[in-house]
């Protein structure tokens, strides 16, 4: 087996005086989708943010493509090819749709190169290119947030709760889109909705109270309904 694209080892993160991550280990193999599972407050979002340097880990290591990036400034980590789709669709509301995409350019012309691909993937965005992004619907904003992460040539996408608050028909579109992407990209996905997670994830890691309690292949997890019920409260 080749070495994983992203490796998180024994990560500890404090927010204020709260010890949120207390030993998170995650391996993200290249070219697949890995899902972070766990109940609310288990530390999934904090893990993504710690990988990206938005919270500074107090202990542990984050290794990306063989390089130790622990403690690096966020912009430097992003420039290695890490895209981020935060929860609550953190698009720039006062910028137009096209500006939201252009601002993500890392090299001149990134947007032009990817334009057709992105607008094929999310046709709504082509139609609304000159609208202020704040006027888009929730689903369209989510598409925009994902499209934005695809403008530069990223190797890894960190996607946080993409299906949250979306109508079922949009969730289907989203699943299709993320599947299409995972053909050429590596994805680490936080997903509260287990029925979405099981369809997308090839690998998984379950967090509880800021620790990794299980990880492996999704197909193995699906064979253990008791485990899913115990940690996620979901009956399969």
């Amino acid at each position, binding site marked *: 087996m080749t070495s994983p694209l992203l490796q998180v080892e024994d990560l500890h993160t404090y927010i204020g005086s709260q010890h949120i991550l207390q030993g998170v280990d995650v391996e993200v193999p290249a070219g697949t989708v890995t899902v972070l599972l766990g109940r609310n407050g288990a530390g999934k979002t904090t893990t993504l943010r710690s990988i990206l340097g938005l919270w500074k880990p107090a202990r542990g290591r984050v290794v990306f493509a063989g390089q130790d990036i622990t403690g690096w400034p*966020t*912009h430097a980590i992003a420039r290695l090819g890490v895209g981020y789709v935060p929860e609550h669709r953190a698009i720039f509301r006062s910028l137009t749709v096209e500006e939201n995409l252009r601002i993500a350019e890392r090299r001149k012309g990134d947007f032009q190169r990817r334009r057709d691909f992105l607008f094929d993937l999310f046709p709504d965005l082509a139609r609304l290119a000159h609208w202020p992004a704040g006027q888009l619907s929730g689903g369209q904003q989510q598409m925009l947030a994902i499209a934005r992460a695809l403008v530069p040539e990223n190797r890894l996408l960190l996607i946080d709760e993409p299906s949250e608050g979306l109508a079922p028909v949009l969730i289907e579109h989203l699943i299709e889109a993320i599947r299409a992407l995972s053909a050429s990209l590596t994805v680490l996905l936080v997903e509260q909705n287990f029925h979405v997670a099981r369809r997308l994830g090839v690998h998984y890691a379950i967090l509880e109270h800021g620790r990794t309690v299980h990880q492996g292949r999704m197909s193995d997890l699906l064979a253990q309904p008791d485990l899913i019920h115990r940690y996620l409260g979901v009956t399969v």
Partner: protein
Amino acid sequence: MTQGHPASPHRRAVLAASLFLVGVVVLNVFLFPPAQVGVILLSGLYQAMLFFLVASGLAIIFGLLDVLNLAQGAFFMLGAYVGFGVYRLLGEGLALGVRFAAALLAALLIGGLLGALVERWLIRPLYVRPLFQIVLTLGLAMVLREAVRTLYGPAGLIPIQPPAPLRTTLTVLGAQFETYRVFIIGMGGGLMLATWLLLRRTRLGMVIRAGVEDREMVEALGIPVGRVFTLAFALGSGLAALGGIIAAPYIGAYPEMGDVFLLNAIIVVVLGGMGSFEGTMMASLLVGLTRATAEQISLEYLDTPLLASVSILLIMILVLLVRPSGLFGSEP
């Protein structure tokens, strides 16, 4: 295959402010003879531009960094002193126009450089403590003012001479108006347009606007936000310093000259909606024209210029009652 723009959420604010401006003009026409109206409107525009130059920096810096930079008035004052210094340094040999242009450029650059240093070394360590930043910038303003007072004396400097064409007067609808004030209006309008284009049409402007909304996300896109913050701070302080040297040949250069502009600039920024550049442009015009009109009404009918300052506060109260976040502010 794109759809047209949807209605701007600020359309009503623009409409209301425009109606108000038209109302002020109509009031003038109604109250005063044409010759006076021309002078009042030009005088209003002139005040508007000076307020704008201090306020735009305040708005950019507040919007992006959440710092209420109370040293903007001091940068305004320093701009005048730096400009005067450079003007004198260049000596009699050079053409007046060259010395004057050099003074403007020096104020802009040194103001900007100083702003960058202040952001990098004084403000940055305090991003986690917003209240301390207010105290810091207030303290900085005092230090700069007292330093200038000690070095150059409390009385201020003898105004420098702008080039000859700017020392004439113009006839506006039969009344006399100093060309220099028209020059201030022109410069202010030009800078307004240039800053607007910078914010709306360049990548730097796009990054600044995005940073106003969500600096973390900008950083997560691979953009070193710290450098953008420093640049924005430099832009804000540079514009204030340029405002100072532009105003100085007319109002003089003295240690407290920034204070009254700072106060009015704060009102302009609050009125426009904290951090909104378009709001600041609109509010500057509103405040400038209202002030000039109220001044004239007050002098004509009450024999005191008191109403000028009161009118600004009244407008602010009125606008904030209707729109608590200002004309272009986003509702919480």
